[in-house]
């Protein structure tokens, strides 16, 4: 009884935050988090600026014979051959008239769908345009480095694979390096809070990354042939392996956490290797997304 009384006195002397302060603090954190997430979604979903595409006409062929574009994009047909040709839509929606050798014809595409076209004097010359809707839908994964910002942040609920993968990748990429940092700082400052961060972030990473990988595979199933074959081949298998590596990391770190122990050098070394693999994986993803 006396012990309890002493405890109560002791607790009276401890500084106590008013409950309203705690609530305000939590509310601010929540609002800040929502704002940051919303901003990220907005940036990810912002529609790409209009692009300029070129189709070369030479040796009685259109190159490329199949071109994927977005509504509002500009397409230029350049006649680099020796004969005059036309660019005539099969459905009659456009006709360039005769384009002489060395000349070009430009058009801004206004409707979606697959538009087959041909040359009127040489009807054996055929090609097609695949026109996608505006803003991030469909099979065009690469935002061009030279595009200008639209100036407006339109937020749309992410729906297509090319939006999900970049969003989820952020978590995959951020969590494990920060977890490793937490464990390193824990060793330096000997604080339990850092070690806790080291465990929990690795756990979050292991939970989220299967979804990141799934989104990547989904994106690839839509895009497939449009990405460089060698890069995607390494990226897809390294990414899937990283899912497994994260799970191993989480189990290992979880055991350490349960024992209330300090992460060993071998664990830290392993975590560092995983981070290096992650950086390489990210560089491959960046190469595909930004054409580096």
């Amino acid at each position, binding site marked *: 009884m006396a012990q309890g009384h002493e405890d109560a006195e002791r607790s009276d002397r401890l500084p106590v935050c008013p409950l309203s302060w705690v609530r305000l603090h939590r509310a601010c954190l929540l609002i800040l988090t929502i704002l940051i997430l919303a901003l990220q979604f907005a940036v990810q979903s912002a529609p790409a600026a209009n692009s300029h595409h070129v189709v070369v006409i030479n*040796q*009685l*062929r259109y190159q490329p014979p199949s071109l994927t574009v977005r509504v509002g994009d500009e397409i230029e047909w350049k006649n680099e051959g*020796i*004969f*005059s040709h036309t660019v005539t839509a099969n459905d009659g929606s456009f006709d360039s008239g005769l384009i002489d050798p060395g000349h070009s014809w430009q058009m801004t595409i206004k409707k979606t769908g697959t538009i087959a076209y041909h*040359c*009127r*004097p*040489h*009807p*054996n*010359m055929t090609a097609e345009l695949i026109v996608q809707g505006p803003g991030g839908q469909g099979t065009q994964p690469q935002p061009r480095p030279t595009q200008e910002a639209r100036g407006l942040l339109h937020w749309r609920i992410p729906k297509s694979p090319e939006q999900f993968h970049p969003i989820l990748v952020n978590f995959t990429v951020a969590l494990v390096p920060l977890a490793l940092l937490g464990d390193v700082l824990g060793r330096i400052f000997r604080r339990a809070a850092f070690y806790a961060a080291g465990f929990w972030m690795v756990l979050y990473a292991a939970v989220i990354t299967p979804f990141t990988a799934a989104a990547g595979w989904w994106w690839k199933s839509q895009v497939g042939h449009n990405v460089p074959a060698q890069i995607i081949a390494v990226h897809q298998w390294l990414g899937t392996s990283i899912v497994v590596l994260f799970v191993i990391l989480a189990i290992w770190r979880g055991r350490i956490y349960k024992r209330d122990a300090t992460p060993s050098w071998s664990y830290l070394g392993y975590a560092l290797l995983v981070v290096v693999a992650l950086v390489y994986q990210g560089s491959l993803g960046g190469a595909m997304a930004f054409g580096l």
Partner: protein
Amino acid sequence: MNYPKILTVVLAVTASLAIVTTAHAQAPSDPQIVGIVQAANRIDINTSTIALSKTTNSQVKEFANQMVTDHTTLEKAVSDLAKKEHITPETSATSNQLNRQATAEDKKLRSLSGAAFDREYISHEVAFHQAVIQAATTTLIPNAKNAELKSALQNTAAPLLQGHLQHAQQVEKSLGS
């Protein structure tokens, strides 16, 4: 003098020469190939020029215009290539035959007018392009020895002729013949 015997010998020699000449024409040389292609080009330019002066049908006019432009361009391209590759065009039995047929056809076309002219011109163009494509694919391209000449025939002349054929067939259909 045994005249029947001499006549038989003369005929046999002539026939052999004709056969040998024809056999040679089956496998034309590069100079002969260029000669044949240029003959075909000039023939189509001439016939289509006649068409331009005679037709009143806008589709036929458009087609004839395209023939003159395209075959003039092709003639120049082949001529430039032959000069670069040091191939001097030669006449052959095939090119002579083509020219003879063309002269006869042009005479026929000049005697026609109106819708009859249009139909005859277009059906002739269809047949002509079919024949030239056939010759190109079975004889000219396989026998071309010079790589540049072969490539030009395969990648430029053949698809061009194919395009002309399809265009001519479309016009023929619209004329309702």
